[in-house]
């Protein structure tokens, strides 16, 4: 089965692998929880701004969601790390092959329906109890009151036909149950995009427990499938992300979050990327790729002139050119003096006029 194209999704119950294969070219970018979570980030960083129309003009009204920027974030995170089949092992004893990675690191099933609260589901997955949370310095009851994964009833990430004896890129299947529908995607990389959204919900719940929010959370009709994270006010969503970088939230949540992402250490990098991808997506020509914007790179085609895409009109950049007829001059007539090495005659003190004391390096 080919996962190339990256984003295969369908909506049906009891889907088989063959069904998934048939839907490989479906353009649904993700399950609704994932989409709404990234939509809520895009909307916090690049909102629609009708108030700028009078000040700057009508082209400054549309926001990142008008350019479907959430698809850019989801595509990038889902194509972020390839896992090779031959590097995965079923065994827990890794001493035989130091380079091998256990299969269990990449597979999980989170069942939120039927087990009680969403926190119960996560505790079950992490093999923890409410009492353990107390030992970790977390207020389990408060967290339970705050945490919701929104519309997600079941979340499963697994390998597709993993054959560790064969070399090749492993394919992953992601299944998310929401209401009576099952969303499937088949990816040839680890499905980080949906995994991060679950992390953001848990971090948002702890953010609220600590009272770090400045506005009260409330269900957000713009992002109906989202969880705790999307219920934060726009600036609180960003403050919440920032607690991953600056603040001990991730360290404190380490054991609770550890089943959700193969290596939680990358989350600070992820916050960098969540912000930075708005530059790589929104303010480049990316949205001009139109219907090909989430194809593999070789299949993307510009469908608009680079200067005609939404954000390019907002920055008044006409797009790349082959050259510019511009005035220029050299600032130093004749260039720099540069004697041969044996005639350099450098001053005795090379250390400049204002050296700050260094530590000399070494340790």
């Amino acid at each position, binding site marked *: 089965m080919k996962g190339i194209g990256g984003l295969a999704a369908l909506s049906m119950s009891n889907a088989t692998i063959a069904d998934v294969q048939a839907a490989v070219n479906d353009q649904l970018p993700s399950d609704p929880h994932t989409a709404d979570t990234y939509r809520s980030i895009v909307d916090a960083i690049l*909102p629609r*701004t009708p108030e*700028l129309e009078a000040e*700057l003009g009508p082209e400054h009204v549309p926001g990142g969601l008008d350019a479907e920027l959430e698809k850019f974030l989801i*595509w*990038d995170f889902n194509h*972020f790390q*390839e896992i*090779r089949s031959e590097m995965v092992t079923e065994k827990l004893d890794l001493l035989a092959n130091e380079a091998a*990675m256990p299969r269990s690191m990449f597979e999980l099933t989170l069942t939120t329906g039927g087990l009680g609260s969403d926190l119960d589901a996560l505790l079950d997955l992490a093999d923890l109890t409410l009492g353990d949370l107390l030992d970790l310095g977390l207020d389990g009851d408060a967290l339970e009151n705050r945490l919701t994964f929104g519309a997600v009833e079941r979340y499963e990430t697994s390998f597709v036909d993993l054959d560790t004896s064969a*070399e090749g890129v492993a394919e992953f299947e992601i299944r998310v149950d929401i209401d009576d529908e099952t969303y499937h995607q088949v990816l*040839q990389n680890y499905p980080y995009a949906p995994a991060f959204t679950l992390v953001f919900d848990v971090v948002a719940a702890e953010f609220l427990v600590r009272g770090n929010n400045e506005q009260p959370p409330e269900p957000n009709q713009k992002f109906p499938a989202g969880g705790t994270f999307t219920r934060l006010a*726009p*600036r609180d969503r960003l*403050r919440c992300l*920032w607690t991953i970088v600056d603040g001990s939230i991730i360290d404190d949540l380490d054991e609770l979050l550890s089943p959700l992402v193969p*290596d939680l*250490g*990358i989350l*600070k990098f992820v*916050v960098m990327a969540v*912000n*930075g991808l708005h*530059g*790589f997506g929104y*303010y*480049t*020509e*990316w949205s001009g790729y139109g219907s090909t914007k989430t194809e*593999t*790179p070789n299949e993307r085609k510009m469908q608009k002139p*680079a200067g005609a895409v939404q*954000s390019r009109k*907002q*920055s008044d950049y006409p797009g*790349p*050119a*082959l*050259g510019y*007829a*511009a*005035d*220029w001059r*050299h*600032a*130093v007539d004749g260039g*720099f*003096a*540069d004697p041969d*090495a*044996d005639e*350099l005659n*450098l*001053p005795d003190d*090379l250390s*400049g*006029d204002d050296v700050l*004391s260094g530590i000399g*390096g*070494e340790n």
Partner: protein
Amino acid sequence: MRDPDVVVVGAGADGPAAAWKLANDHGLDVLVLEGGAWHGNKQWPKPHADAGGTVSTDPDDLDGKLLDEQFTHREADANDPTWGYLRVGPADHSRAPWFRNLHQNAFIWQISAVGGTSLHYFANHPRAYPYAINEQPHWPIDYEELVPYYQLNEENTSTQQAPMTGKEEVFIEGATNAGYPLIETKNVTETGWRPQANAVEVPGRQTATGEPLNSEYEGSFSYDDGFRGDTLVGDHFQGSSTPIDAPVRDKARKSSNVGYVPRALDTNKDATKGNVAIRPNAYVTDVETKEGFGSIEATGVTFRDSWSGQTQTVEADTIILAGGCIETPRLWLNAGLPDDGWVGKGLTTHWFDWVVGVYDEETIEDINPDMKHMDPYIGQNSAVRFDKPGVGGMEDIGMSPGLVSYADYLFSQAGYSFDTPVDPDEPWDTRGYVVGKELKRRMSNYRQTKALLILTDDLPRQDNGISLDNTFSDEHGAVPKVKWEPHPEDDAKRDELSRIAARIHKEAGAEHVHRCDWPPLLLHMQSSMRMGKVLDSNAEAKNVDRLFVADHSALANGLGGPNPTNSGQALALRTADRIADLYF
């Protein structure tokens, strides 16, 4: 090439320079193995979609028009770290990039391809501050010994003073008003400003109409119509294959695929010289060794073809590692070579910051009476700089808007500007991430905006660097784990340079100054396999005979702050001479 004298691992900025010197001046046969793609070569017409050929030795394989097709000048196409044609990863673009485990708010910016990270550089070629070589305690060789190699490298790469366009005139106004003098030497020992020394040909060296390139010029920018030299497009981060239609070797900006690869392949056409073969899509996974007298000796390398998955071992008399500051130590450690505690360590990265000035039309018109905008996409990306030996330097920079939005407003360690107070004693107006309505406002001023890049002289420390990750592995072994944090001394230097930058903006009349307070941006990486620690004064490994390092990781420190390409290439040229003297 069945029996090379030297195998070079990596065709980035430095590997091709070493290969050219070994073949051209010493008659040696050199095989260069590159893990990434090769753009602008007829043997790989679709380098990201199809395996193409195996190896190239013929300079006639190089095709500038093919390069023009592949380097689209578009930002996302080029620079997206996940799918851009300038990324770190296998050539096959249906696959993800190579994973590096980074547990920080930080960004690693490199390229795997023939040309390496020099494919997206601004081509700035300052020399190291003499102070950093002679008076910091790291280097086993003197500055004076590097100067002839700087001179050779500057000649090979057309390095000269950069042209001043609108944004540079604004910088000069600010630097002059702030009292800084013009520096008129390449060997910088005093504080001041100067044009960049950069590896880009003179603008409009010849034009299609025979008229000079200035605002009156109405001719073509095509090589086929007679245009030669720089076309003043600020697209160097997108690959800069201008002038269009030019043969690869005549592209104006001399990234190493332009400045060194053609002249390296030219040696194959001269019977009196050695031969150079370059094989892309060949990722080296192991260094072969044998026991010597009380030491071990490198005998070859094993590589994996990234399209077929097949592995192959090739033997050589000497091996040069030139995979860059991350891949060279990663290979070393995965190969199980001896580590005395400094392999991969001592990484320096010019503790960057980024100070943004937004200007109004009247200010620009006062400085440049014919202009209303600085238009940061016109002219070279970075054509003027400031130097303060002992502290670091800075560069005036203009780029296209995607890169500007990321660098100016969406990359910070200070948090969101709406929550980040500004000390009233500091010379900037805002700090941190800028989002929402304010981001749109700032970006609506894109054509009136330019930034100053702070390059702090950070010193090598053993805590910073590359180790093997114990969580993830890929087809090449354990992935690299990368860590870099500034020393408090570095913070103090960076703060000082940022204050100078803000002052220069304000002295030029900026109406708003923003300090980004960048987290680590691992772009100018140096010194993770340092001379004086891992390497001796020949750049040969202290613990493995016949194994050399010729990439920026061999640099013994961060050079005081100046951009590292000129120094990395100069040292690689010297190392090639040392290899020939020692072993051939």
